[in-house]
């Protein structure tokens, strides 16, 4: 029986953890001085040995990625922190940056030392004004106190951080599109190879890492590789911030060790489903990960275990839907998202997502035809594996998986022109589960909120 745990989130409930004083009082900045004593190569080896896997979605081992960075190229080396967080259902990085921004800055300083990089960029999504403000304040304090800048803590190591706001494009979370966007261009994916590690930002060696991945680094340095490996499973070490949304009693961000089951998370942290509802389907890691059903609730939070169950751990954005909710409507909603966010660079994704969305609209307005299911299948097959980047593949996830597990709902819809009785299009929109684990708008100035986001 796994228990929730507070490592990355250990300071979340401390009201002033976002100030340097609060952060240090709660044990912050004890890893950086230690890390500065360690040779860069040894730090990379430590992160590799600890088994940290990327938290941005793909689960690629962070230490291995760092070890690919060529040395002595004569060009600068960059660290780019991916804070674009636009995957539907995902809100872990936002809370981390709002409540504990120094944790990220400490991680950046250590990572830069490990990579022998003097400049890091944080690419934060344009809507994240409040987290951005928190980060800006933290950066000012960190520079003034010598935790960032030239010769940090007298070590001779220089680390400069630049915060860059995105401008609203999901695709800019994809690492190569992100790099183009950072360079002031349209954010469209680049052809690989060359990989960013070799030729990334301004054609220089670049490591792109998710916020949560970087926030793990100080803990590995401070508590040690063995401690880190003792959390989680053999192949997925450490803890995971799980963002739960949907028809549960208490949605929110919860930290669990890898290896916990989805059932444990829903029942313990979220106090179960809303009254009178049962799990029908869920996305384990955001909208890009194939849906799973009630029978998969005992699958473990582990990159390989979720893959074995036919889905992906992704960002661990757990979106839970009940027996009252139509999966076809949910799939239409996600399809509209991908149609809107397709960057237009390649034909399968640009055209395919458009046609998929048309078919959903036709079916759900009562004009579905039996061959529509086959059209969905075929269009998905033409997108999957034929798209330029992973967004195209992701667009097919909710469709293929819902057709696999809930074909009867689709068949009923095209046969009768309406959803089966008892299923509602928008049962996911509910107002009675607003009770949050933590108030999320605690110190938020009234002027920085959704209303001022254009």
């Amino acid at each position, binding site marked *: 029986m796994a228990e929730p745990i507070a490592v990355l989130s250990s300071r979340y409930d401390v009201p002033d953890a976002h100030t340097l004083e609060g952060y240090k009082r709660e044990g912050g900045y004890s890893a950086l001085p230690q890390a500065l004593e360690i040779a860069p190569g040894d730090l990379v080896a430590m992160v590799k040995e600890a088994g940290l896997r990327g938290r941005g979605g793909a689960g690629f081992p962070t230490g291995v990625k760092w070890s690919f960075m060529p040395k002595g190229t004569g060009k600068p080396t960059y660290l780019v922190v991916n804070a674009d967080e636009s995957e539907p259902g995902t809100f872990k990085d936002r809370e981390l940056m709002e409540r504990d921004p120094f944790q990220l800055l400490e991680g950046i300083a250590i990572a830069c030392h490990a990579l022998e990089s003097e400049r890091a960029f944080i690419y934060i999504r344009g809507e994240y004004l409040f987290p951005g403000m928190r980060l800006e304040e933290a950066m000012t304090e960190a520079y003034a106190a010598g935790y960032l800048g030239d010769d940090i803590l007298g070590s001779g190591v220089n680390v400069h951080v630049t915060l860059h706001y995105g*401008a*609203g494009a999901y695709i800019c979370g994809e690492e190569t599109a992100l790099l183009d966007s950072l360079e*002031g261009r349209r954010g469209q994916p680049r052809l690989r190879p060359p990989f960013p590690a070799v030729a990334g930002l301004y054609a220089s060696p670049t490591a792109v890492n998710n916020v949560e991945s970087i926030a793990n680094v100080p803990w590995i340095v401070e508590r040690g590789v063995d401690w880190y490996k003792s959390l989680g499973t053999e192949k997925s070490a450490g803890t995971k911030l799980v963002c739960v949304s949907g028809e549960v009693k208490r949605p929110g961000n919860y930290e669990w060790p890898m290896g916990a089951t989805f059932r444990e998370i829903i029942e313990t942290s979220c106090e179960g489903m809303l009254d009178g509802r049962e799990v029908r389907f869920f996305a384990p890691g955001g909208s890009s990960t194939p849906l799973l059903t009630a029978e998969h609730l005992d699958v473990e939070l582990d990159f390989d275990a979720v893959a074995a169950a036919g889905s992906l751990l992704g960002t661990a954005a757990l979106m839970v839907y009940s027996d009252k909710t139509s999966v076809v409507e949910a799939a239409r909603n996600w399809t509209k998202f991908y149609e809107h966010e397709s960057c237009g660079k390649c034909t399968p994704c640009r055209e395919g997502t458009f046609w998929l969305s048309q078919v959903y609209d036709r079916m759900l307005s009562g004009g579905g035809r039996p061959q529509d299911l086959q059209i969905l299948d075929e269009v998905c097959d033409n997108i999957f594996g034929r798209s330029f980047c992973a967004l195209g593949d992701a667009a097919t996830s909710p469709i293929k998986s819902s057709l696999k597990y809930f074909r009867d709902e689709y068949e009923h819809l095209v046969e009768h022109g309406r959803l089966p009785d008892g299923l509602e299009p928008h049962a996911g929109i509910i107002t009675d589960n607003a009770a949050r684990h933590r108030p999320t708008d605690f110190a938020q100035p009234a*002027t920085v909120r959704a*209303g*001022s986001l254009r």
Partner: protein
Amino acid sequence: MAEARTAERAAQGEGHPSGDERFALLDKTLRKARYQQDQLIEVLHVAQDLFGHLSEDILIYLARQLKLPPSRVYGVATFYHLFSFTAPGRHSATVCMGTACFVKGAEEIVQQLEAAHDVRSGQTTEDGELTVSTARCVGSCGLAPVVVVDGVVTSHQTAESTLAHVGEVLAKEPTEAST
């Protein structure tokens, strides 16, 4: 006097022939960005904060200042969802929320504006008359708190002075100068 300043700036290749002071603020941002082409998105953010939207005129102006082809500026601006190209309300009030303005009470100004006109910042009143918005920093910290009303920079504002000024502007008959 304002015309003299505008003419002076125009002679230096800065500012905009229309004399709209927001272009001068945009120039400050451009200078801070050292006219680097890769700063385009940051500059677009500021331009939109200032003008409420990105008109063709603004895009061409930025293209010229950054020495980029207009197609590139247009292509980038239209790619991102946060940029909009249609004019918001007939009048606009943009409150700077940069640090200097913030500590001198910019938030109070926004709250009072919102309350007085029943609108939230980033939005336009129902009658389409007034858009209230906030900007991250318009780069005039010495004049804090700054509110840009219909393209005119007003300095050292208080909630009362802003409300009075906006009230006057709204009461005026529509003129060509109003955006």
